[in-house]
């Protein structure tokens, strides 16, 4: 089957990739990625405000993968990763782009897309209120997520969440989340 999870990245021509990972997302891997990228941000002399935003968004994106990825299809190339995901961090002219990808079961696509659309049509004030509402009213789910990750990312970056679902088969789609952290926000 010709399905390449990395093909999405070839459509993104601008910028300089500073980190790429594909495989199992576990706690140790998250530590490693955070360490590596933080080191590069410091080495690149990025302003602490931008550094912190990138770090925060990276934590939430990786932990979103950790808590929410659905299992890989039976005929996918990587059958050993329990929680398969991909991540790329790209340095662009005015900030950093963080792209993640993971499998989502067909049944979960609509719900996830609805959530993103709701965030994307909200103003900054509405997102702040939504964040506070979820913080105060929703318990941590059985998967360990708080349901706040995407809202927090949108709030901290001030940008719309770009995304794409690429159909793998009838049961699974591959979900890309593309976040831009601007140095001017």
């Amino acid at each position, binding site marked *: 089957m010709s399905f390449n999870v990395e093909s999405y990245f070839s459509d993104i021509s601008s910028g300089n990739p500073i980190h790429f990972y594909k495989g199992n997302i576990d706690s140790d891997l998250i530590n490693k990625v955070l360490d590596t990228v933080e080191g590069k941000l410091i080495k690149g002399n990025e302003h602490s405000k931008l550094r912190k*935003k990138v770090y925060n968004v990276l*934590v939430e994106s990786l932990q979103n993968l950790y808590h929410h990825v659905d299992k890989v299809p039976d005929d996918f190339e990587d059958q050993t990763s329990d929680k398969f995901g991909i991540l790329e961090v790209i340095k662009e002219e005015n900030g950093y782009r963080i792209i993640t990808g993971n499998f989502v079961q067909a049944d979960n696509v609509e719900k996830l897309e609805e959530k993103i659309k709701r965030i994307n049509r909200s103003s900054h004030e509405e997102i702040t209120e939504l964040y506070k509402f979820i*913080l105060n009213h929703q318990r941590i789910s059985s998967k360990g997520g708080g349901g*706040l990750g995407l809202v927090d990312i949108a709030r*901290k970056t001030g940008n719309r969440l770009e995304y794409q679902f690429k159909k793998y088969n009838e049961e699974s789609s591959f979900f890309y989340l593309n976040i831009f952290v601007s140095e001017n926000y």
Partner: protein
Amino acid sequence: MEPIIIEGTPKTPTIKFDSSKGEFEIKGRSIPENSVEFYKPLVDWLDLYKESPLNKTVVNIRLEYFNTSSSKCILDVFKKLEAIHKAKNDVEVNWYYEEDDEDMLEAGEDYESIIRVPFKMIEIVE
């Protein structure tokens, strides 16, 4: 009550809860995948402290980063403090943030708007 002292790690904060002084501190990074596991003993400890608190309790929050999963646990900590305050004891939260870190200031303001305990926002100037 025995104090709780926990050394910080790259993913979990330093904790100093001292009931004899009524001083509590959470400092550093709080970004564990499983934040409930980390915070549950602290919330349980505060449940006990709440039974016989000092007249004045001071809470210092000096976080550099925290993830959204920790944010709910930190709210649980504040809810215990709110109960102590409601029972006519002094409780004061000092929320520290670095001078250019508006996100951390806003996070403190979120809690201030949810929890009925006096908050002081303190800017750390380097």
